[in-house]
């Protein structure tokens, strides 16, 4: 596994900021009514997508979730195209036909946000099967929530990856809630990683707010996959900054106590401190990245706002290939 170099640290810090800024802006814009539909924000969980995708190239695949913006950004999707997609504009990554829950860019190895909870497991297994069949060293990463771990696709998907020894890493984002339902209610197992044993694969739990911890654990799991040793189930414990979707009152979140304290930890400032302390970033570099990131997101918003809506005929296009 590649150590966290200065270059990588810059990419990491930029990516985390991009995600945070993107999501905060979408949050603000949503209240104006300019963005239609359902939007699930990734803010607070940046360390996971970033720490995992730091190990991936465009040739590696990921599957994502309804909360997909972070994965898209970390996998290299174009910010302008993403924002335009969320606005439903013709210049969107999916021509405005997918929206927030279906952002995808196969050229970047991004196999789609997914409106179906648990929808990603089999698709990631398929990408892993392809990688193995074609004798590449590429991996597939399946991001999924704590709630998704109770879908049958979790079971079938991980079991297949295990018995076929596929290069797939299952990255769980355990933010304690599936909508308004806590993980401790919905799962018979204590942790998500506890379920790995049922498939004879390693299960690891890390602090998902700690970029370095995620980076290292993911690096190990991805190396394992690349070298033909099969899948890993990596659980990253985290918390989301916003509600389940925009408009959620979040009555289920703890008003105080340990959960609340966890919630208040910020993965970005924690990484900033770490990077400066370990001389991976200077204060000045960090500040430059911060303002560059804001500028990039503002650019994306402007791009989205100014883009045209899809042509009417687009309704009928792209149903069948050829």
């Amino acid at each position, binding site marked *: 596994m590649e150590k966290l170099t200065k270059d990588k640290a810059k990419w990491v810090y930029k990516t985390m900021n991009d995600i945070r800024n993107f999501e905060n802006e979408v949050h603000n814009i949503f209240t104006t009514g300019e963005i*239609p*539909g*359902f939007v699930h924000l990734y803010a607070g969980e940046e360390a996971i997508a970033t720490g995992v995708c730091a190990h991936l190239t465009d040739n590696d695949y990921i599957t994502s979730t309804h909360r997909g913006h972070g994965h898209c950004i970390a996998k290299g999707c174009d910010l302008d195209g993403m924002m335009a*997609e969320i606005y*439903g*504009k*013709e210049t969107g990554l*999916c021509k*405005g*036909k*997918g*929206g*927030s*829950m*279906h952002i995808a860019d196969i050229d970047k190895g991004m196999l789609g946000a*997914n*409106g*179906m*909870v*648990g929808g990603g497991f089999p698709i990631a297994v398929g990408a892993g099967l392809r990688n193995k069949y074609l004798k590449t060293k590429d991996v597939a990463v399946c991001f999924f929530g704590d*709630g*998704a771990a*109770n*879908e*049958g696709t979790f079971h079938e998907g991980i079991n297949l990856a295990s018995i076929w020894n596929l290069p797939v890493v299952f990255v769980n984002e355990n933010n304690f809630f*599936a*909508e*308004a*339902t*806590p993980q*401790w*209610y*919905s*799962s018979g197992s204590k942790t998500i990683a506890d379920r790995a044993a049922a498939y004879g694969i390693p299960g690891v739990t890390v602090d998902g707010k700690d970029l370095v911890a995620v980076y290292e654990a993911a690096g190990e799991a991805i190396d394992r996959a690349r070298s033909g040793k099969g899948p890993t189930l990596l659980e990253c414990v985290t918390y989301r900054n916003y509600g389940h979707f925009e408009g959620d*009152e979040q*009555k*289920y979140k*703890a*008003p105080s106590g340990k959960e609340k304290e966890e919630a208040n930890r910020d993965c970005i400032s924690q990484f900033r401190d770490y990077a400066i302390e370990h001389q991976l970033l200077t204060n000045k570099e960090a500040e430059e990245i911060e303002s560059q990131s804001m500028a990039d997101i503002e650019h994306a918003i402007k791009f989205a706002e100014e883009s045209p*809506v*899809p042509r*009417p005929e*687009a*309704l*009928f296009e792209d*149903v069948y290939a050829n």
Partner: protein
Amino acid sequence: MMSRRLTFMKAINEGLEQAMEKDDRVILLGEDIAGGADVKHLEEKNEDAWGGVFGVTKGLMPKFGRERVIDTPISEMGYMGAAVGAAATGLRPVPELMFNDFIGFCFDTILAQGSKMRYMFGGKAKIPMTIRTCHGAGASAAAQHSGSYYGMLGAIPGVKVVVPSNPYDAKGLLLAAIEDDNIVVFSEDKTLYGMKDEVPEEYYTVEIGKAKIKREGTDLTIVAIGKMLYVALEVADRLAKDGVDVEVIDLVTVAPWDEQTVLHSVKKTGRLIVIDEANPHNNTATDIASVVSDKAFDYLDGPVKCVCAPNTPVPFATNLEQLYLPNADRVLKEAAEIIEDLKK
């Protein structure tokens, strides 16, 4: 009873409440139909966090408790199948499938288990279970949360399907569905939740299998499903100006749909348009068209016209989504052939 206006959503909520008051065997299951299960500060106050993703089941958990309003993990096959098992053994479960688009996760429990049990078991089982779900485009919910699958479900032998178009029917049909000893899919149009209308306070049922004539007419029959009723009524209004007298039928029940009422109307008017938001092939509109074109062949003065969604997934962009949905302009255009010669 004093007249009283409720939203579509609240009418359903009240229907659930009255069904549960009337019959102990009625239980609800679904994802976050209460919300906040096992969350200490909510449990202490006996509060639900959500009451369903749209708030339809709000307040039912505090009233009936978590034994009867059961939050499920994200396990559609598990809890939908559990509902089948509970129904086969004497309860009257009302599971909620949050969006009908999630049917792919639990289709077996309906297609191969619940709908076939009675037949396979030689008549010994009954499965009194009402699946609440929602369908429909228009909420910018994109391809995986906007489909209309009531027709597909209704085509399964053993399954009944109702699609209410207004708060009154919503409450009455829901209560009829829960009283029914079969699997009834109760499909709510998510864009109607806010619609307000008069709803009696008392318990009442609306007959399953009976269509409703919403406007009488002699020149042309329009049959509409759910929200499409309002498209039909708009078309009727607009055509009235041209002196065309339209009869509008709210199908109410998609399976088994009311052949008698539809045929009776078409035999009178000689012309039929069916409006169905489902994708265009093998849907309820084509089913009605084929039956009417057969059984009322000699009465038809022109072809039956089906106005449906196009053969595409539901697009996200608002402008495209509006084009996707059948509307009055499209009806007038696609059915011009049978409308033109009516205009006086």
